[in-house]
């Protein structure tokens, strides 16, 4: 299985220059797409008859050790009917703003995947309805942990990290659904009900 997926020529005819290079790595086809047309490409891959990449396996990002190389965002797609896989990538310039369009409107499952990439790499998904941190707490101020310029133990001293962690007020940053207390809403103290009704959230830095 070292052959390029037949999807790639079909993509080239449909999108022309927007499809950049394509290669095969470990049997997987990887297609690089221009950032401005990646949303259209993904919609096409999902809806075009004969392609049917209807399952979004994962969204992730790659930062290489060489600082000159661009940061890549990858969408791993699978066609459940055809049992075929395809990896779509976008190369983002490290020195420009890291922005790609959200595919939340195409796959609802992209919600948490995009939040994770945002949390760990700082890639902003425009059009995502609720883009905030998912693994780190919302007031986390040290940056994006999976970036290469992020030190293993974080930027702050352990005492400062501990202080900030203890000061994080988890219940003021999560929605009722996330806390699974929607049914007990009326049992909550009045001030907490007010805060949650206003949708009070922390500040992202």
């Amino acid at each position: 299985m070292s052959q390029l997926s037949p999807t790639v020529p079909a993509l080239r005819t449909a999108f022309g220059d927007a499809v950049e290079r394509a290669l095969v790595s470990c049997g997987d086809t990887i297609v690089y797409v221009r950032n401005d047309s990646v949303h259209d490409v993904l919609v096409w891959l999902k809806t075009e008859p004969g392609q049917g990449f209807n399952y979004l396996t994962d969204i992730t990002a790659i930062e290489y050790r060489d600082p000159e190389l661009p940061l890549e965002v990858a969408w791993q797609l699978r066609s459940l009917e055809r049992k075929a896989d395809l990896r779509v990538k976008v190369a983002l310039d490290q020195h420009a703003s890291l922005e790609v369009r959200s595919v939340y409107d195409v796959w609802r499952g992209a919600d948490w995947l995009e939040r994770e990439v945002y949390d760990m790499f700082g890639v902003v998904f425009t059009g995502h309805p609720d883009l905030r941190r998912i693994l780190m707490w919302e007031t986390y101020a040290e940056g994006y942990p999976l970036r290469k310029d992020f030190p293993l133990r974080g930027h702050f001293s352990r005492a400062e990290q501990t202080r900030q962690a203890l000061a994080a007020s988890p219940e003021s940053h999560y929605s009722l659904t996330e806390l699974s207390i929607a049914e007990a809403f009326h049992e909550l103290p009045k001030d907490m009900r007010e805060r949650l009704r206003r949708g009070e959230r922390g500040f992202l830095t």
Partner: protein
Amino acid sequence: MGLTDREARAEGEQLSTISSISPNWVTTRLDFLVNWARKNSLWPMPFGTACCAIEYMATAASRFDIARFGMERQSFSPRQADVLICAGRLPFKLAPVIRRIWDQMPQPKWSISMGACASSGGIFDNYAMVQGIDTIIPVDVYVPGCPPRPEGLMYGIQLLQKKIEGESFTDEALRDEQLVGPAGLFLPAERVNELSEPFGNSVQQTRNA
């Protein structure tokens, strides 16, 4: 040292409450009775976050059975618990959670730090992990191991029982709550940094590396 403090205080203040008088036959017998009751009916509050929790479950189950030590009832409410057993690594995101649970537990209360991660951060010397829960809550017994065998945890529980045996209600500081202070920590910041220093055969020995 506690004895001399107490004597000095009792003399200076001329108090005659039962906790201010020096240990005598009544207070030591009462201590013995109270401590005997406490140590044999500890109600653990399990705070299981990782693989240590599996060993904790094994400890609680029929083969090892911590009910033999009076820990018959697993208390899943901090309000009815005596011992907080932190079984597993503690990420910073859970730090305010375990702190709140500890604050919600009524006195008398003790805590056991089960496993390498809870005691020191273990192999997770990184940005996300608390380097030992003793930077978040006071700890009475550390159980080493990764994860500790049930025998190890039971040994830790017996050590805690020994510690409870030695307590005296004439020691007034014993039941003081160690709350998070105005600086946002219950220990001095330097102490937290010192406790969190890399150790052992860590590849990067300093925080700046």
